[in-house]
């Protein structure tokens, strides 16, 4: 057996089975693979031919570069199919199966089929019902009329039962849980209209409501389908992230290289990542340098160059020509990829507070409608039996609060999706409301307005040690810190042992290096050779004296000035709060166009400043790197973090700037206002419609089919209004 076949055998292990493939019945399992090397339609045909003898239900997706098939593990293990593909030049990428994602795919198919049936059948019913409308029916032969009625029943049945199943099942679920939600009035109106009409067909006379029932099912499932599509699009980023999780790693041990399941990798393992492969865990680079594509993690399109000892992130792809080695430093749920996925999943689950109120309101509203419909029927009964039913149906159908309950979530989903495409991930949906009101933005300096990687620009030796030695001591002290300033010393690492390292944010770091106590922190005053005023000065001291002063320079982000200008154009007050000295802070502020600067602020001072602004009635958004500014971010109304490599799950951030670009930020408040306006419009429209149509329906002025049309149109207007958001945003 060849080496490449051995490499795939790891996927046959029982502990990997459930994370790769899903049971598909009859002893078969279904698997979804990424497939590299597939470029054209001919490749698709070739892959299908290759797999045909070994697998069933092969589906190749060229745009997504994926293939899905079923295989029988008892007859042929997955590894031999993988080796076969690999041998033909199509390198399989085994993806982690996400039950929810695959469930969605199957659910979406079924939903489409239901809509298709509903549309076909309701068109037929409408056609057959048309001749019986109004006075035309008088001229029709009675036997033909009976034929038309029976055929309507025939067509309405699949539409109501198959097409309307989601509503019927939803209502049954709600009633079993002793709740009333909006599925209940929908299901009641469909079932009542259907049963009454069926009974009248059997009886041979009386008005039929098959047309209303089928039209209601068709239009409502259409609205739900659009809603589902927009949600799916908003979740697209999450889906791609989940797809990037690797399941195996190549471990370099004393006995050579070995492919092992990720669960068996422990901290400190040395792993190899071949060119074109994704990094399996977070870890420190052991080679001199490597180029990585982090597009999925940060949105940065260009490959990022990493040097020895720098942290590589799981999910980034080795785009260099040579394999790289790294030492595992964070596994599983500790990796950046897992954390960003977790944050997004949490955001997907969270519902904005007003939406929770609205959901409860929709429940009460549904109950009210059921009672009103019953009341209408009772009031009409004594006058006119025939009209009582039609009026009650019209009330049920016309005033269903579907539009009301669609109003909020759709606009939010569309808005979050639009923000995500611009590079702003909404970690807490409830922050969108406050984002719309933001009138003050406070920026941190390092890592936020400037690039996160400062460089040591100048070393001024004041003591007896050499410059190299001072830099090595500083590197040892700063080794464990995630602060951007600490990164600057990484390249001067001589692996000196450091113990008892303590850091006080804003004040510096102290610790024992090779048994001697050192301290590094902000230096006072400017030294002669410090270069530009925008530099940050750090001093290294031992217990007696200052050994050296380092001038660190982080270049401002190229897009910072444009972002600040755009915020100010919106009338937003922009401030810079920094722990740095006055001079470099002022210099940076001039470069990016900020006039209000507060320098030498400790994190407590920043928090106090934000509190004061809030006391003046301002709504404050804080932008920071996520860790050093934790108190600032915690105090602000909207916290926006640019957490490159920092522990994300701990950062209290409402918004995440994933592509490390401020450009996206400027548009965010505008978009948030747009979302809020859209939600208000939707709710206003839905309420207005319901309030206006209810008296008409109760008075018996609406035929049930008119009510169905009006209700569904109202839902569609709400859906389309919410979906209008993204397109509008893109032109801005």
């Amino acid at each position, binding site marked *: 057996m060849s080496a490449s076949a051995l490499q795939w055998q790891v996927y046959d292990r029982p502990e990997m089975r459930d994370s790769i493939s899903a049971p598909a019945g009859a002893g078969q399992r279904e698997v979804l693979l990424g497939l590299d090397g597939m470029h054209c*339609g*001919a490749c698709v045909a070739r892959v299908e*031919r290759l797999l045909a003898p070994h697998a069933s239900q092969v589906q190749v*997706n060229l745009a*997504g570069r994926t293939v899905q098939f079923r295989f029988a593990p008892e007859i042929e293990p997955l590894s031999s199919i993988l080796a076969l593909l690999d041998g033909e030049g199509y390198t399989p990428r085994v993806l982690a199966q996400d039950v929810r994602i695959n469930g969605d795919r199957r659910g979406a198919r*079924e939903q489409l*089929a239901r809509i298709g*049936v509903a549309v076909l059948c309701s068109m037929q019913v409408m056609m057959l019902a048309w001749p019986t409308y109004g006075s035309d029916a008088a001229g029709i032969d009675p036997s033909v009329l009976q034929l038309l009625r029976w055929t309507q029943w025939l067509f309405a049945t699949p539409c109501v039962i198959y097409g309307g199943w989601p509503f019927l099942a939803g209502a049954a679920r709600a009633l079993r849980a002793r709740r009333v939600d909006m599925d209940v009035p929908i299901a009641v109106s469909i079932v009542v209209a259907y049963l009454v009409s069926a009974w009248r067909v059997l009886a041979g006379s009386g008005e039929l409501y098959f047309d209303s029932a089928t039209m209601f099912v068709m239009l409502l499932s259409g609205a739900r389908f659009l809603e589902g599509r927009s949600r799916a699009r908003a979740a697209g980023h999450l889906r791609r992230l989940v797809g990037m999780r690797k399941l195996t790693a190549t471990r370099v041990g004393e006995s050579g290289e070995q492919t092992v399941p990720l669960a068996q990798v422990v901290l400190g393992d040395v792993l190899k990542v071949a060119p074109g492969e994704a990094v399996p865990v977070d870890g420190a680079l052991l080679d001199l340098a490597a180029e990585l594509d982090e597009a999925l993690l940060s949105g940065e399109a260009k490959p990022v160059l990493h040097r020895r000892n720098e942290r590589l992130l799981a999910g980034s792809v080795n785009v260099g020509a040579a394999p790289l080695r790294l030492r595992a430093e964070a596994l599983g749920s500790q990796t950046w990829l897992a954390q960003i996925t977790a944050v997004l999943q949490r955001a997907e689950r969270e519902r904005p507070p007003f939406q929770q109120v609205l959901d409860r309101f929709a429940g009460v509203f549904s109950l009210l409608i059921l009672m009103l419909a019953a009341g209408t029927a009772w009031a009409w009964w004594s006058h006119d039996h025939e009209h009582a039913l039609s009026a009650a149906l019209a009330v049920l159908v016309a005033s269903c609060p579907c539009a009301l309950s669609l109003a909020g979530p759709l606009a939010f989903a569309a808005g979050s999706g639009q923000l995500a495409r611009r590079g702003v991930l909404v970690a807490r949906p409830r922050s969108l409301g406050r984002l719309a009101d933001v009138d003050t933005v406070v920026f941190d300096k390092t890592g936020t307005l400037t690039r996160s990687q400062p460089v040591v620009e100048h070393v001024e030796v004041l003591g007896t040690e050499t410059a190299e030695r001072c830099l090595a001591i500083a590197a040892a002290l700063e080794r464990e810190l995630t602060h951007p300033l600490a990164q600057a010393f990484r390249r001067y690492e001589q692996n000196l042992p450091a113990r008892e390292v303590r850091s006080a944010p804003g004040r510096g770091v102290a610790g024992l290096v090779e048994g001697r106590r050192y301290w590094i922190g902000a230096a006072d005053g400017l030294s002669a050779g410090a270069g530009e005023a925008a530099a940050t000065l750090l001093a290294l001291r031992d217990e007696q004296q200052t050994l050296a002063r380092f001038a660190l320079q982080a270049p401002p982000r190229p897009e910072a000035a444009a972002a600040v200008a755009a915020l100010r154009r919106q009338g937003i007050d922009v401030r810079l709060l920094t722990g740095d000295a006055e001079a470099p802070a002022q210099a940076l502020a001039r470069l990016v166009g900020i006039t209000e600067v507060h320098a030498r602020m400790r994190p407590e001072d920043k928090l106090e400043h934000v509190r004061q602004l809030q006391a003046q009635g301002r709504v404050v958004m804080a932008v920071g790197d996520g860790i050093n500014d934790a108190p600032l971010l915690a105090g602000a109304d909207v916290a926006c973090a640019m957490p490159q490599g920092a522990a994300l799950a701990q950062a209290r951030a409402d918004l995440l700037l994933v592509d490390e670009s401020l450009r996206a930020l400027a548009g965010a408040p505008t978009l948030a206002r747009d979302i809020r306006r859209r939600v208000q419009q939707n709710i206003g429209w839905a309420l207005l419609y319901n309030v206006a149509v209810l008296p008409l329906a109760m008075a018996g002025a609406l035929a049930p089919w008119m009510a169905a049309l009006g209700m569904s149109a109202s839902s569609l207007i709400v859906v389309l209004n919410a979906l209008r958001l993204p397109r509008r945003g893109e032109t801005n």
Partner: protein
Amino acid sequence: MQILFLLIPLGVVLMAAAGGLLVWAIRSGQYEDLDSVAERMPDDEPR
């Protein structure tokens, strides 16, 4: 008008066929990926 007794059942049968075909096509995933086929080159090789 008696022809309707033939034509309407005929329409029912046709609709049933159309509906069945549509459901089959959707369930077997034919609407899943509308892009790949467009990129597929003319494929003469026997399969």
